[in-house]
């Protein structure tokens, strides 16, 4: 991917994920059952986004993680609630036959892989034997919208219809207006799949970091605008040195995050040992989680009272960062993984 290829991808994102403009669409979808708009999701699928980094054999366009991260960043900046990263993760484990409808947006399959909070373990207690699935999965993003789930089990991946017998879903609302699902499987009929996710959970982790970058980047820009336009004591508050220095520090964190993610995506696309790739992803996710929370919470402070109202858009960025910061692993768990990988 050259810089100009990446720019094209970012520009193409603008139609669905405008960097500026109001967030009425986002607000209207908050706390609804699905948490996103199925029509927009189909448009996203028409653009081929969920398969952007997927191999061509699986129906994707194999443009790599640099491209997918650029896209995720734009969607983060626009707070797009449609489940791009989840859908791409699901696609990685699906045979091409299933991927056709999934990637077309007519049949949304969501990944149910996680069993413990804040865990980077990649082993599973869920069992799939003789076509029957048992166990529990948690933190399934936007679970209520799925037609099927692709479930990690001790025996490999399995596909289970959301409305099937033995499948029980409970949902909890998240701060960003979406929800997490908890799935309990009791002898649920399931189709074993022969493929596996490979490193797709890692790719989803990196794309989540990129989303956080977009969130932080836009929150920073909104705050900078606010500081230039809001006056107190007869001058723009952005002229106060203490606020200038804080913005300078936030800018550095923002650019460190951008550089870290770009380097991780680049080295991922170049190949290299798994340990190196995972260490780079952990590094990028740790930075993105910390800096997005830092920048969005400072953004609230720098907005003053207005930042504490639900009417102000800046709060939507804080809430998004709160949900994404620990998804696919908190900063602390990624630091621990980085330390373990660097020892080798």
């Amino acid at each position, binding site marked *: 991917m050259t810089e100009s290829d990446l720019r094209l991808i970012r520009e193409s994102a603008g139609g669905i994920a405008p960097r500026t403009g109001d967030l009425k669409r986002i607000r209207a979808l908050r706390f609804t059952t699905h948490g996103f708009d199925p029509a927009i999701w189909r448009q996203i699928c028409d653009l081929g986004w969920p398969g952007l980094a997927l191999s061509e054999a699986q129906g994707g366009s194999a443009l790599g993680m640099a491209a997918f991260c650029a896209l995720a960043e734009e969607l983060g900046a626009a707070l797009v609630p449609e489940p791009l990263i989840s859908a791409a993760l699901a696609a990685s484990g699906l045979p091409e036959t299933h991927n056709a409808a999934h990637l077309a947006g007519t049949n949304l399959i969501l990944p149910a892989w996680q069993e413990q909070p804040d865990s980077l373990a990649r082993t599973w207690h869920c069992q799939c034997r003789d076509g029957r699935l048992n166990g529990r999965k948690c933190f399934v993003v936007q679970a209520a919208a799925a037609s099927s789930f692709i479930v990690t089990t001790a025996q490999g991946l399995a596909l289970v219809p959301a409305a099937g017998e033995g499948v029980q879903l409970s949902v909890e609302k998240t701060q*960003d207006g979406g929800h997490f699902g908890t799935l309990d499987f009791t002898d649920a009929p399931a189709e074993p799949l022969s493929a596996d996710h490979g490193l797709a959970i890692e790719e989803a982790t990196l794309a989540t970091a990129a989303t956080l970058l977009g969130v932080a980047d836009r929150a920073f820009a909104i705050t900078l605008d606010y500081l230039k336009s809001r006056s107190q004591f*007869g001058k723009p508050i952005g002229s106060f040195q203490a606020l200038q220095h804080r913005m300078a520090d936030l800018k550095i964190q923002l650019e460190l995050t951008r550089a870290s993610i770009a380097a991780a995506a680049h080295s991922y696309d170049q190949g290299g040992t798994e340990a190196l790739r995972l260490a780079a992803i952990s590094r990028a996710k740790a930075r993105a989680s910390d800096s997005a929370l830092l920048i969005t919470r400072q953004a*609230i402070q720098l907005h003053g009272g207005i930042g504490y109202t639900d009417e102000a858009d800046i709060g939507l960025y804080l809430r998004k960062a709160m949900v994404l910061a620990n*998804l696919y692993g908190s900063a602390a768990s990624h630091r621990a993984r980085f330390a373990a990988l660097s020892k080798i």
Partner: protein
Amino acid sequence: MFQIEPIETRNLDEWPDDAFRSEVRQFLASHYPPELRFPPRRLHFSENKPWYIALAKAGWLTPGWPRQYGGLGLSAGKQLILIEEYERHGCARLNDMGMTMIGPLLIKHGSIAQQEFFLPKILSGAHIWAQGYSEPNAGSDLAALRCEAIADGADWIITGQKTWTTLANDANWIFLLVRTDKSGRKQEGISCFLVDMSLPGITVRPIINLELHDEFCEVFFDQVRVSDSCRVGELNQGWAIAKNLLGFERIYLGSPRQSEQALDRLKLLGERMNLTEDAFFIDRFTRLQLDLEDLKCLFSHFADQLRRGETLGADVSMLKLFQSELYQRITEAMMEFAGEFAGLLEPMGGNRELHPGGAFIAARPTSIYGGTNEIQRNILAKNVLDMPG
């Protein structure tokens, strides 16, 4: 001189501290509604009314007021004990503007007629007050306020907008700072008015905050006519009155309570996340705990000044600064250790004490209200450290 007979006939200020503390505990045990302990957010009057009325009936609503105005006449030291016990018990904060600000203001600056009219109604709970200071373009810079009153015969016509008016949706009276003269410096030409919120021309619009709660309101005044008898203090001298209103509140804003409660909850969260043996969690927790312990030492230092009858200096700002940011740091630690639960809108498993995301959001405004922490640092630098410019 106007007087009100206190309902509480005992002079509690003369009691030994221990006896007083134990009396307060008994009072709370028998009068405080258990379901209101440790509320997750500021309560509306409709919710905390039973407690309000219980205090009013006992004559305990206004601990700081002199006994001749129906208060308990407690010294600062005794008031601190009261606050400590209320906090320990998890008492909800009341709609307390009338008790803590308007009453003392009227006792100091009000006419006898104003005292006669208003004070008993605060004591009985008939008047619930709001305080109209901030405006959309006068937040930290209060002197920039533009809401104005124009004289019309013996009356005034008030037009403008107030914002961040705490629980204005509960209040039936509002204390207003308005501009009555535009010719001088920004701080001049401001006067104070007492306004009945049922008057025509007043609209209240709740603001939904980040906790998705309607604690604050905007209040709009469209040519609201009030009589000059509703003006309090000298004309155009309102700034001086308003500036000195926050006396005792300045130490209250630095009370370690929020941080203490948050730290307890961080501990609970650590247990829930199986981190109690995790060296990194322990270190992080201990640092915050030490910050809290040292904050308590510093708080005691200022409380001792109050107990000795001294006036607190501008350096009391240190408490508010450190407390609010400690509270925030504790909730930030919650976010880091809570895994995916950090993103939940509601408490974990319905346990109100396990709500990292809620606590994180609730802690945000503490560094904004009561003068942003940036303003507090300016005050420290200029008024305490005597730094130039």
